[in-house]
């Protein structure tokens, strides 16, 4: 089963994304901050990670850069899910190694389509 790591400090968003991805047939690991996200990624090697950009402690950018640096997680596709919608923010997300960028408020249906597309590109 394809596993997706969801990291967001907003419990509503976490719950919402987990519900939608669960409905779409994915196994979901949901965590509330960047440090937990890194730990979960190292322990479970998810097929994809959805990271909130602004989390307490390690941000989504920090987590993404760290995942890219570590051999075991370097290939995990990352989707940034964030309220920061300015052109520069998007560019920063991609520069950190993100594969896609979804702006909050988001459409749960569109998010699932993006997950499917990113996974297909990654060959999972």
């Amino acid at each position, binding site marked *: 089963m394809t596993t997706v790591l969801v990291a967001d400090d*907003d419990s*509503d*968003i976490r*719950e*919402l994304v987990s*519900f*939608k991805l669960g*409905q779409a047939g994915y196994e979901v690991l949901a965590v509330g901050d960047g440090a937990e996200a890194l730990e979960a990624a190292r322990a479970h090697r998810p097929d994809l990670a959805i990271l909130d950009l602004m989390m307490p402690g390690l*941000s989504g*950018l*920090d987590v993404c*850069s*760290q995942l890219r640096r570590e051999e075991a997680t370097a290939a995990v596709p990352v989707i940034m899910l964030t309220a920061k919608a300015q052109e*520069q*923010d998007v*560019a*920063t997300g991609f*520069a*950190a190694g993100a594969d896609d960028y979804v702006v*909050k*408020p*988001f*459409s*749960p*249906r*569109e998010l699932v389509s993006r997950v499917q597309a990113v996974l297909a590109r990654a060959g999972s």
Partner: protein
Amino acid sequence: MRALAAVAVPREGLSAALPGALSWSLLVIAAVVLLLVGGIAARRAARRRRVERVRRTTEPLRPLLLELVAGEPEEQADAASRLAALPPPVWRSVEPAVVALLSKVRGDSRTEVVRLLEERGVLGRARADLRRRGAVQRARAVELLGAAGDAASVPALVELLTTDRAAEVRIVAVRALGRIGAADATTPLLSALREQQGRSRVPPQVVAHALLRIGPAAAGSLTAALAEDSAAVRATACEILGRVGAVGSVAAVRRCLREDGSVEVRARAATALGRLGMPSALEDLVAASAPSAPGTARTSAVRALGELGDPRAVPVLARLLADDDGQVAALAGPALVELGGTGRAVLHEAAGPDAPGGAGGRGQAAARAREALAVARLREAVPAPRGAAPVPSAAPVGVGVGA
């Protein structure tokens, strides 16, 4: 003296009465403190009970809320009808959780939430609350209608923006109009920037963000606003036109750069032209970068020449490396880097071994060129610090200019 003697208490009488009065005062204070502590504890306990009651009520309904915003269409419809049929006391508990979802989802999911709130009369109440006496109630209603993207309330929100006596309500109204994407509100939003008694009615950056959210739909009104008599309005209009990529406004923005009486407006026009990236702006930007132009407009024009990306700007920027204005000269190097291979070739030529390193124009040009090339090399070699936002290429969105 007689009067004083009349009020004077004999010394022995005072010392006898004092301990009794003190004890009474202490008793009263202790009683008041106990009452206050008891009251606070009771309030906290009541709040805890209320929160717990709400949690117990809403917890079983969470799956229904999730189906409403993230379910398949038939699940969404079923969840909506079940939530719409909840008895009023249960709905009152779950309503905040439904409202909170508004700011988290968009598309069909948001539409379902809005439909439910309309059906339960929440939006109707908010529209009525716009006329409440209390500013907090008005602001809450505005916030909710903005989050719901309620186009029907735009005229009422514009009225609040124009007439409300509470600054907080005006600010929330601006944000709500931006969230709704109310293109019709562009002109009133810009008018809120006009100064009254030395201050605009709403902070310029709040208006600018709202206009950005409205986006290209605001371009027509923004272009018309370039002819307004308030410099703050013209500067904001230039800024937003550049940021929303309104290429149809290039001619009007160019006119601002050439003719506007405010240096700040000319600077914003230059920045906007750089962002818009139309080659037709080259001539005006070159003119604005000339030594005869005012300082702020010059620096913005030099940056914009780099952003515009037209190689015809290379000789102009190469000359500016030796400009007397240190800021202009310092910006010419990075602008040449932005222009790619041709710009870099000129920088290498200016920085090369043939370039004299002594004082004077050519020496300064060589130093600036070396500096620009070194920074470019560093940027390419070293990735940006983790989590660091890129350095903005121009001033922030907020515009503060005297009208």
